[in-house]
């Protein structure tokens, strides 16, 4: 199992290998962090651009929030495979108008983020919205996965 820490800045190829080493300590720390207690796993990905995600949960549903600014709705794909939610897409680079100069920090190209959900969800009722560059996916829990309350009558 692999956990890749979210990186705010895209890395150059040269730095990637080096950072992997220096990040190892942090990654190990993360493995033992309490995120596991909640049952979520942010899966590793091979893409260099990994949008940041938040996950909310209540007794009825999960809400996954991802930051993917500057995209079109059609460029974002959401898929559910078993208990793994995958958000992916491709951000097209802006056409350069001038040849004079360009200083770039933003990342373009394909991205993918996968999350393992701790319980089954109702695929039919998954809803997503995209506003202000923030994607929100609401995944209602499957009936059988909801906590049940059992009434015990005292006699």
């Amino acid at each position: 199992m692999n956990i890749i820490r979210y990186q705010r800045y895209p890395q150059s190829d040269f730095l990637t290998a080096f950072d992997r080493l220096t990040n190892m300590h942090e990654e190990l720390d993360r493995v033992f962090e309490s995120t596991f207690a909640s049952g979520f796993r942010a899966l590793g990905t091979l893409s260099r651009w990994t949008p940041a995600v938040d996950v909310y949960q209540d007794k009825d549903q999960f809400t996954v929030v991802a930051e993917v600014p500057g995209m079109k709705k059609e460029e974002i794909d959401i898929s559910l495979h078993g208990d793994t939610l995958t958000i992916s897409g491709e951000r097209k680079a802006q056409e350069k108008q001038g040849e004079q100069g360009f200083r770039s920090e933003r990342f373009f190209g394909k991205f993918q983020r996968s999350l393992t959900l701790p319980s089954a969800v109702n695929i039919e009722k998954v809803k997503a919205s995209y506003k202000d560059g923030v994607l929100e996916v609401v995944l209602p829990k499957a009936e059988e996965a909801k906590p049940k309350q059992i009434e015990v009558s005292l006699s």
Partner: protein
Amino acid sequence: MDIIPKQQNEPDRRANERPRQVQYLTPLVDVESTEEGYVIRAEMPGVEKEGLEIMVDNGELTIVGHRRHLKHPGELAYREIRQHDFRRVYELDPTIDTSKITARIDQGLLTLTLPKAERVKPRKISVE
């Protein structure tokens, strides 16, 4: 001549009286330079039009984006997104006509167009 990003940790000159307590995130920015001027594109997810503050003062461009804090149902179970507002300061090329700067924001991507003043644009002069 260029548009130069200023160091973020540089203390705000106007806030000498009291230490700045607000923490900001530095947005990822592309700066494109053309004959006509410059185009700045800044990623500010969660910021809508009303949350933007763009100021030009003394040759400095300051971009601040306040996030719209959405209430999501349930409890936070896993966090990566930082909730701070965005801020970035640029030192402007003096050839920019600051009265003609335009801005728009679409899906969390702020696009600023900074045209150069007419007098500094390259011009071809035809010989009669």
